């Protein structure tokens, strides 16, 4: 059966059917994005932290906007070319449109990658240090790990009845232990390698024994044949003390804490959340004490500049001034001399400097080793960092999916509809118009996303 009214207008609506279809779809799409923009308003109004403004890479976002606008022009030109039967031109315009989509997504991937590698560490006094984790010689990030050594004993708790927390050393302990297949001795002196089979046998025997003794749970103690080392992300374990570590299955290991300090190559000190920014924990002698004069000089420079430019305005109420004066960006591993802290007016360049991008790009950052007790929270720039990054990834991610889908449809027309182009160009023109309408909608969403997430 043929789909009716693909070329000619249906008498009652005056339109070919696909056009009604795409507009109904776009109406539902508007609602989808409308809901998310509404969420953006709520999250922004409810944010208890300075909402990031100009924190993303504005230059990259700007070029992506230009790329999308250009592709919007080329897709409508492709449609006009088919209408005018200029088939060669049509192919060129359509190809440019699809390439633009590729460029857009490539830039987006650069932006996402920079976010994933960039970290924010909130200190106990509210200071936020931004920066990168150290890298090995192959430019792989060395992630933050709690390191334990001299692990001699594992203590496993297995409830007799099924329970939410039951010892599962194969899944939760062994992956964090250094070296292949560590060997343990059981209470009765048998030497085992902890794998699924060995643990099943061990736990079955222990549960049977506990059942016979009328206990609720069995405790199994394993002694390491040679002292072991373990390393785990803080999120992969329940907790630790100086001489014991508890894994997420409740298994406790006796050992010695080797290292729980975080190494961070700091590229920014955000003291907006601190009552006395000069005395921020970041300027502790262990950390960035040497930067304090430069920080103070930078703040005073910006405040003086603000007072000169806007003598009547309230300094406390300017979010821009707060950011410029209290969010200090570090560009070198040696602290600048206090009087040269603001060499010339770096206003524009500084404001344009991407907070996330430019990683490793010739920059050399001071390495700071932060005590675990000074850290309240840390995360890379992903949805878990704050509500801004949550809505940023949701909106741009969904928009990116639309770019990919739209580009695939247009690419399909270009590659597989060659015969239709020759034999039924009006039908293809209508298809392109419908695909183009979707493509313009994607551009339209970006027109709002760019200022809301990058600029304002």
């Amino acid at each position, binding site marked *: 059966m043929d789909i009716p009214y693909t070329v000619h207008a249906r008498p009652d609506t005056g339109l070919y059917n696909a056009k009604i279809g795409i507009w109904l779809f776009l109406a539902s799409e508007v609602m989808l994005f409308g809901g998310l923009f509404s969420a953006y308003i709520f999250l922004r109004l409810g944010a208890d932290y300075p909402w990031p403004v100009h924190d993303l890479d504005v230059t990259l976002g700007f070029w992506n906007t230009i790329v999308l606008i250009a592709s*919007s022009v080329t897709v409508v030109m492709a449609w006009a070319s088919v209408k*005018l039967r200029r088939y060669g031109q049509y192919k060129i315009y359509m190809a440019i449109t699809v390439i633009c989509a590729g460029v857009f997504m490539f830039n987006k991937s650069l932006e996402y990658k920079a976010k994933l590698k960039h970290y924010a560490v909130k200190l106990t006094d509210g200071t936020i240090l931004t920066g990168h984790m150290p890298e090995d010689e192959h430019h792989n990030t060395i992630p933050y790990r709690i390191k334990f050594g001299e692990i001699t004993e594992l203590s496993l708790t297995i409830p007799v009845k099924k329970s939410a927390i039951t010892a599962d050393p194969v899944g939760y302990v062994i992956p964090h232990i250094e070296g292949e297949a560590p060997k343990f001795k059981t209470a009765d002196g048998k030497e085992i390698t902890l794998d699924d089979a060995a643990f099943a046998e061990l736990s079955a025997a222990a549960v049977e024994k506990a059942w016979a003794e009328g206990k609720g749970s069995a405790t199994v103690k394993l002694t390491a044949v040679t002292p072991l080392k373990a390393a785990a992300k803080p999120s992969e374990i329940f907790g630790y003390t100086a001489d014991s570590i508890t894994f997420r299955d409740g298994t406790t290991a006796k050992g010695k804490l080797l290292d729980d300090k975080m190494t961070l190559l700091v590229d920014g000190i955000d003291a907006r959340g601190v009552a006395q920014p000069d005395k921020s924990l970041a300027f502790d002698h262990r950390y960035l004490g040497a930067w304090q004069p430069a920080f103070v000089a930078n703040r005073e420079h910006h405040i003086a500049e603000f007072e000169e430019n806007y003598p009547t305005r309230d300094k406390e109420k300017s*979010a821009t001034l707060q950011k410029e004066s209290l969010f200090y960006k570090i560009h070198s591993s040696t602290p600048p001399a206090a009087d040269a802290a603001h060499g010339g007016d770096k206003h524009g360049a500084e404001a344009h400097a991407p907070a996330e991008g430019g990683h490793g790009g010739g920059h050399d950052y001071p390495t700071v080793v932060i005590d675990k007790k000074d850290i309240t929270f840390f995360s890379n720039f992903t949805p878990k960092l704050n509500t801004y990054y949550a809505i940023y990834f949701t909106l741009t991610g969904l928009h990116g999916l639309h770019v990919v889908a739209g580009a695939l449809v247009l690419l399909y027309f270009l590659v597989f509809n060659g015969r239709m182009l020759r034999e039924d160009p009006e039908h293809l023109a209508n298809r392109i118009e419908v695909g183009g309408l979707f493509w313009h909608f994607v551009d339209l969403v970006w027109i709002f996303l760019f*200022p809301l997430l990058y600029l*304002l």
Partner: protein
Amino acid sequence: MSDNIEEIQKSIKKYLIIGALLIVFTVITVWLSYVELPTHGLNILVGMIVATFKASLVALIFMHLNHEKSVIYKTLVFTVVLVFVLFVLFYFSKMDPLVFDGFYKLSE
């Protein structure tokens, strides 16, 4: 729908002009975002006005909404109304019983 050849040829020029206008307004948006207006709220307002203007150019010219059949406008009326509701929904969040004046009236 502009179906005859002359009209399409004319509109090609229009599309290029609109494309250039959109780029110009993008530059303006970026520039305006660095201008320190009395409050940041004003920056947001101005930025959104420019963005809405750009969006209407895309909708009216590229999406041909300046000359479309009535059935499409009838469909879109519902969308516009519902999206407007979504955008002002935040206002109701201010009616929190904990802070809403009329809720806890102290008896005199």
